[in-house]
């Protein structure tokens, strides 16, 4: 690796001390005089018309400031009662009808939470039930009842500019990819594999539930403190929803207690803003865990995948992917598009057909979840790829290697791939688990097997990150960025990149937390995009500061500024370190006064070539890819169906690792979380009613699920335009876990699981079916 001073070093987190002492600021710690608290009455019906709301008794309760209905919100002057990042379909409070069990209907703001909850008990709502749409495949049919009569595009993001208004269908968005002639490939095939894989809805479960505080300041500006991954978007959404100029809104985000995609776009902010505007008091709404389950989920997905084989080679693949986006589209269309186009895998397949559908149902809305939908499609394609290899007698590793794209070859979208370490990642994973050596036979009821899987995600493109770097006369630096620190280590990453660029020590860099009054626009803190996009932005902004300072010093020393470098907190002549000065002296040379600043601003805005709407073909569909591979050895208890992970390796191609230990930590955390999602996590609905919406009933990965042997492995295939060659890593570890485990279970037992989660019950049932079939033979 090139000669870097702090990039590539595993420096410690910037925020460690305040976090380990518990002194860290969260929105839930902020109190204001006269602050009101919120409780919300939610729909008990999956789909119903609101016929009457009686709230006068609730309004008379002492301590209640307001009891608010959707009809009243709709009458607020200049207010659009619906919001959303793809379609403006989600009501601040339900106006005429409710669309899922848990949909917010009436909000109370009161002096404390208990008073607000007591008042809610006195609100009466009458409903007239409507036919509910609960099954995603049935919802896609033309004869299905409709969740929404029409779909109104939000026009908030460049990558969703092609989303069209729609009506008379629950399919609010469809992505199509057509490459070659799939029909011909299937007609000429020796053998066709056809399988359906399902993934259930699940909950992000950030330990800090959503919380938002809104107040009007002395200038009557709307001030929002919120646990959000999207400060810039929240400001835009509040501006559009309430008809307020952007500079009359200030959004600030302290550290988040986890996000994982749950805290993207607008959630509580529109409602709490409405309550603050009406009451003229500070209002805070903190969701309970039960409400969190009713706010946002991971998409349930049904993926049908057909693959044709001729002369032992893959000739075609057809994917139909059905995404249950719930009652409101949320960011479903982006997921259906960006993940949809990767549904056939990172493989060289001459004929590909993909239909990816975003479908409304009367269930809890689904949105981004660490991995952005890609884990669901890899679950399908890399389970099936394994099945095909084993069925035709090929080695599953060699089979994948044969088809995995090489540098410069075209993805199914027609885009040549760059910095595409999928083969390297797969090889590392296979070597770690010693894939070529079969598992040792251990006992007749505890069967062991090995599995690998690989896959790739493409970063959201186009998107935008702006940053300002302000260097102070004492050589310290303030970085103004709207990237949200939610645990991933973004502050540390930015600090390392700026310190490297300006030649100052890491501890001299302070990262200013997102504040839309001072930090520039950033599309989103998500999708593994911040290291590349914000990393480039802060690096370029720092470079502008360096240019200004070097010009001043160059004039003074009578040397070409291009011959100067910044190193060791100095500005000096390259190769002649004696000739130069401290940063403090350089500022004095430029300004002659103490306490001055130099500011640089930059925007990183990668573009994509628009996809052909009929074929999904594009010369450039993404700025970078991040390949993933997982290998595992499992032990299947054939008497209980329980799966034990004996070895677990998570491999990611991160590009240059800015902070290797933190990259490993991202792989490890996302892989263990996805282990839970693979083996037991599932939101269970009965007629649209969530039946396990509490942590008493919903299980997530705990200490007991940590495998005996777990190792993250970083592969570094540098990206030519990444900051110092870096890409992204936040989601990589999630991508290939489920398929690797199912493939290992098959290796151990010969049974194939096609539905997540892989519960002991499912394993036992599959084992029983297999022995039944064996008896009949």
């Amino acid at each position: 690796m090139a000669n870097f001073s702090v990039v590539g070093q595993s420096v410690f987190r910037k925020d460690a001390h305040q976090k380990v002492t518990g002194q860290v600021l969260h929105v839930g710690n902020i109190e204001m005089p006269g602050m009101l608290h919120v409780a919300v009455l939610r729909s008990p019906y999956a789909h119903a018309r609101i016929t009457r709301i009686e709230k006068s008794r609730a309004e008379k309760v002492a301590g209640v400031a307001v009891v608010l209905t959707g009809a009243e919100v709709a009458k607020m002057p200049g207010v659009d009662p619906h919001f959303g990042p793809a379609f403006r379909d989600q009501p601040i409070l339900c106006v005429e009808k409710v669309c899922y069990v848990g949909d917010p209907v009436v909000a109370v703001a009161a002096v404390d939470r208990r008073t607000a909850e007591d008042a809610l008990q006195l609100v009466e709502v009458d409903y007239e039930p409507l036919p509910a749409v609960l099954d995603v495949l049935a919802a896609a049919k033309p004869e299905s009842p409709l969740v929404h009569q029409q779909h109104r595009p939000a026009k908030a993001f460049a990558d969703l500019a092609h989303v069209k208004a729609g009506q008379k269908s629950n399919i609010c968005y469809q992505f199509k990819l057509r490459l070659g002639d799939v029909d011909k490939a299937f007609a000429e095939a020796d053998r066709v594999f056809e399988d359906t894989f399902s993934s259930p809805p699940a909950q992000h479960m950030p330990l800090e539930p959503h919380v938002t505080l809104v107040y009007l300041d002395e200038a009557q500006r709307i001030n929002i403190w919120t646990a959000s991954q999207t400060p810039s978007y929240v400001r835009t959404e509040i501006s559009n929803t309430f008809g307020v100029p952007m500079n009359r809104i200030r959004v600030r985000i302290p550290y988040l207690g986890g996000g994982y995609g749950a805290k993207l776009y607008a959630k509580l902010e529109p409602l709490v803003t409405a309550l603050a505007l009406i009451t003229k008091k500070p209002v805070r709404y903190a969701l309970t865990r039960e409400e969190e389950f009713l706010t946002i989920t991971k998409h349930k997905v049904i993926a049908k995948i057909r693959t044709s084989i001729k002369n032992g080679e893959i000739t075609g693949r057809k994917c139909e992917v059905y995404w249950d986006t719930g009652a409101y589209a949320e960011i479903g269309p982006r997921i259906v598009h960006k993940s949809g186009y990767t549904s056939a895998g990172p493989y060289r397949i001459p004929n590909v057909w993909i239909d990816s559908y975003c479908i409304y149902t009367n269930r809890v809305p689904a949105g981004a979840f660490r991995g952005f939908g890609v884990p669901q499609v890899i679950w399908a394609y890399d389970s099936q790829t394994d099945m095909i290899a084993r069925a035709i007698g090929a080695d599953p590793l060699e089979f994948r290697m044969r088809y995995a794209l090489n540098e410069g070859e075209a993805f199914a979208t027609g885009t040549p791939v760059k910095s595409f370490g999928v083969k390297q990642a797969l090889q590392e994973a296979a070597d770690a688990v010693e894939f070529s050596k079969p598992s040792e036979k251990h006992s007749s009821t505890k069967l062991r097997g090995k599995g690998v899987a690989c896959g790739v995600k493409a970063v959201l493109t186009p998107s935008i990150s702006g940053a300002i770097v302000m260097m102070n006369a004492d050589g310290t630096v303030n970085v103004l960025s709207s990237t949200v620190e939610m645990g991933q280590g973004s502050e540390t990453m930015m600090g390392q990149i700026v310190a490297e660029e300006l030649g100052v020590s890491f501890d001299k860099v302070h990262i200013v937390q997102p504040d839309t009054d001072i930090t520039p626009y950033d599309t989103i803190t998500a999708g593994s995009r911040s290291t590349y996009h914000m990393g480039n932005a802060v690096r370029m902004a720092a470079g502008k500061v360096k240019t200004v300072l070097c010009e001043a010093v160059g004039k003074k020393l009578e040397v070409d500024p291009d011959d100067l470098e910044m190193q060791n907190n100095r500005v000096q002549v390259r190769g002649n370190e004696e000739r130069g000065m401290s940063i403090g002296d350089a500022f004095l040379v430029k300004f002659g006064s103490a306490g001055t600043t130099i500011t640089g601003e930059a925007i990183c805005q990668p573009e994509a070539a628009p996809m052909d709407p009929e074929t999904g073909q594009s010369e450039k569909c993404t700025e970078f890819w991040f390949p993933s591979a997982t290998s595992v050895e499992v032990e299947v208890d054939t008497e209980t169906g329980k799966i034990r992970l004996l070895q677990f390796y998570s491999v990611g191609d991160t590009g240059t690792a800015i902070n290797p230990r933190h990259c490993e930590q991202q792989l490890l955390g996302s892989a263990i979380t996805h282990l839970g999602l693979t083996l037991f996590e599932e939101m269970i609905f009965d007629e649209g009613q969530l039946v396990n919406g509490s942590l008493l009933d919903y299980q997530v990965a705990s200490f007991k699920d940590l495998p005996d042997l777990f190792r993250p492995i970083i592969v570094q295939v540098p990206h030519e335009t990444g900051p110092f060659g870096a890409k992204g890593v936040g989601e990589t570890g999630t991508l290939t876990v489920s398929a690797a485990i199912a493939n290992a279970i098959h290796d151990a037992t010969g049974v194939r699981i096609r539905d997540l989660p892989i519960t002991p019950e499912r394993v036992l049932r599959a084992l029983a079916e297999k022995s039944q079939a064996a008896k009949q033979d």
Partner: protein
Amino acid sequence: MKRDITLKINQRVESFTIDDADTLLEVLRERFKFWSVREGCGVGACGTCTVLLDGKPVSSCFVLAARADGHEILTLEGLSDGESLHPIQQAWVEERALQCAYCTPGFVLSVKALLEENPNPSDDEVREYLVGNLCRCAGYADILRAVRAAQVKLSA
């Protein structure tokens, strides 16, 4: 109903009036502003509101304040002065056992209790003891290493 109680919180004796319905979590956060005590689930299942009651970890969301009358409470704020770190906290930083860190106060206190009860736990005993503290960033491997590092520091 209102009632007067006396608690020793972080070495300070406090007497005050509560409502019978108040949980220990509500009292610690709303009255005393111990913000390290955080509500994660409200049903005693996630461990983010863990405090030590007479040295034993409890989920403060699941303990009525009245039940704590006459007892001793330790929150993370009482573990160190905020400047110098307790050996467990040092281990947490060194082994990078935190990301979003919403779970950290609960984990650190549970580990304090664990290592006092059992200064030399096996891996399985650590897992068993900490099963009630969830980390959704899922840094369990880092946390396990931090427990080991803390053990070394405390026995030194």
